[in-house]
C-alpha cells in the first residue's frame, strides 16, 4: 500500500520527470475508490464506470494544462480526485436532470462476487449491502455523502472538509449527526425487497 510520501514521490515524478507510469500507479490506487464513491451516487454500474474514467481523464488534462504552474499543481491527489468526482456527479445529474438514488436493485445485482469468499460470506455481504442500501437511502444527501467518505472511503475529516467545502469542525459535527440518523434508519423495520 502506498504511503503519503510515496504518493508525493509519484506526483513529483509525474510533474518533474513526466513519468506516465507514475500516473498509472496513482490510477491503480484511486480508480477502485473513486468507482465505489461514484457507485453509491449513480443509478448503474455503467454510469459509475463512465464517470470514474472521466475523473481520471480530467485529472490528466488538469496536470497537462497546469504542469508548468507550480502554484496550480496537485498537492493532495486523493482530495483532488474526490472533489473532481463530486463535481462531475453534479454535472452528470444536471445533464440528466433527475434525482439520484443511492443504490437500486439493478445495481445490487451488478455487485461482483469475490471468488475467494465462501457462500455464507457472500450471503452475509449481500444482506448487509441491502440493509445499508435502505438505511443510507433514507438519509439526507449531505449525511449520506459524509458517511460514504468517512467510513467507506476512510478519508480524514480535514480531507472531507476540503472536498465538501466546509471546515473540519463542521464536518465532525455533521458526521456525528449523520451516524445517529443512520442508526435510526437501521432500527426501522426493513422494507421487503419487491423483486424477491
Amino acid at each position, binding site marked *: 500500500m502506498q504511503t503519503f510520501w510515496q504518493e508525493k514521490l509519484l506526483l513529483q515524478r509525474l510533474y518533474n*520527470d*513526466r513519468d506516465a507510469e507514475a500516473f*498509472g500507479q496513482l490510477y491503480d490506487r484511486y*480508480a477502485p475508490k473513486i468507482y465505489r464513491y461514484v*457507485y453509491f451516487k449513480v443509478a448503474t454500474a455503467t454510469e459509475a464506470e463512465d464517470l*470514474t474514467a472521466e475523473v481520471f481523464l480530467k485529472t*490528466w488534462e488538469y496536470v497537462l494544462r497546469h504542469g508548468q504552474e507550480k502554484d496550480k499543481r496537485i498537492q493532495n491527489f486523493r482530495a483532488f480526485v474526490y472533489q473532481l468526482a463530486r463535481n462531475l456527479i453534479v454535472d452528470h445529474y444536471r445533464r440528466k436532470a433527475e434525482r439520484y438514488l443511492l443504490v437500486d436493485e439493478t445495481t445490487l445485482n451488478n455487485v461482483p462476487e469475490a471468488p475467494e469468499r465462501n457462500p455464507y460470506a457472500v450471503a452475509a455481504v449481500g444482506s448487509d449491502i441491502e440493509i445499508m442500501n435502505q438505511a443510507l437511502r433514507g438519509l439526507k444527501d449531505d449525511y449520506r455523502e459524509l458517511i460514504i467518505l468517512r467510513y467507506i472511503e476512510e478519508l480524514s475529516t480535514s480531507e472531507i472538509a476540503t472536498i465538501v467545502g466546509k471546515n473540519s469542525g463542521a464536518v465532525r459535527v455533521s458526521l456525528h449527526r449523520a*451516524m445517529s440518523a443512520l442508526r435510526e434508519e437501521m432500527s426501522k423495520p426493513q422494507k421487503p425487497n419487491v423483486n424477491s
Partner: protein
Amino acid sequence: MSIRERHNLKKQLRGLQAIAPSPRWLAARREVLLQQVRSQMKPMVKPVVPAWREQLLALQSAYSALVSAIAARSIAVATLAVVALFATSGYVVAAADKSIPGDALYPVKLSVENYRLRLARSPQDSVGLQIEFANRRLHELAALQGTDRDTLPQAELLVTDFETRMKSAAATSTEIAATSPEEGLEIARLFDGRVAEYQHSLEATGQATKTAGVSKRVNKALTAVNKASTEALKVIVTQDSKPTPEVTAKLDGKIKEAEAALKVADERLSTGGVKAKSDTNKKAKEQSVVAKTNLAEAKKKLTEGDFQAAIAILQSVEDLVTEVVNSADDEAEEAEKTDEPTGEVKGDEAPDSTEAPASESSSTSNDPAPAASSSIVSPLSKILNLGR
C-alpha cells in the same frame, strides 16, 4: 449512541468496501488512459539527481544481481533485482534513457530494454518494443555523430543492432499477421509509417561516414528496412480489398528503386576491367537479367491491379537484387584495391545501393527481356505457376 453500536455500524459500513469495479475494466481503462498520457507527455528533461554517484553504485550492484539472475534464469530473483533497481535509482534509469554508446549508463539502457522485451506480454507488444528500440538506435546514431568521440565501432554496432531488431520485428509481424490479421495490419501500418524516417536516418549516416565498414552495415540495414517494408505492404494489401493510391505509389516506388539499383550495379559490373569476365561477374549479370525480367512482370501486375501478385514477385526478387548489387560493390572494391581503371566508380566513397536516378528506370522496363539463363532458377516461374 453507545460505543459498541457505533463500532458495529462502522463495521457494517466498511463491508461496503467489497464493492469494486471489474479488474478487466480497470486494466482496459488504464491502458487507454496511459496511451493518451504517453502520447501527450513531453520527453523527460529532469537531470540526474545530485547524489549521482551513490545512486550509480546502488544501481551497479542491483544491475549485477539482475545480470546474474537472468543468466541463472531465475525470474523471481531478476524481478526482485529490477524492483530494487527501480526503487533505488528511478532517476538514474530515467537518465539512462538519454544515454548513447560510450556513456556510463548506456549498458543500463540496454539491460532495461532487454528486460522489457522479456516481459513482453504478447508478440504484438514485442514488435512494438523492437520498433521502439530500433528507433532509439537511429537517434543514438545521430547523437553520436554530433560528438567528438571516435564513434566508428559504436556506429557499426548501432546499425547492426538496428538491423537485428528490424528483422526480428518483421519476422514476428509475419507470425502475428498469420494468426491475427487485424493486429498484423495495425503493426504493418505502424511500421509503414516509419519507413521513410528509417531510410532517411540510415542514408544520412551512410553519407556522414566514409568508412567502408559502417557503410556496409548501413546498406545491410537499409536492405532489412526495405524487406520489412515490403512485408508490411504485403500485409496491408492482403487486408485491404482496395489498396489506397499511396500504397500503389509505394509499390511502384519500390519497383523503380530496385530497377535503378540494378542499373547502377550493371554499370559497375560492366566497367570492372579484368574482373568483368570472372565467374562472379557473369553470374551477377545473369542474375541482374532475371531480376529485371521479374521487376517488369511485377510492374505489369501492378498496372493490372493484381497487387498481391506484384508484391509476391517483388519479395522474391529483392534478395536477387541485393545479391547483384553486393556483387557489383565487391567488384568495385576489388577494382579499387588493385588500382585498375574503375570507370564511373568513385574511389573515396563506398557505393550506396540506393543511389540512382529514378527517372531512368522507365527505359529499363522497356528493354526486351532476354531469356533467363538455365543455370539460375527464375523465382518468377514458381510464382506464376501458383494456383494454376
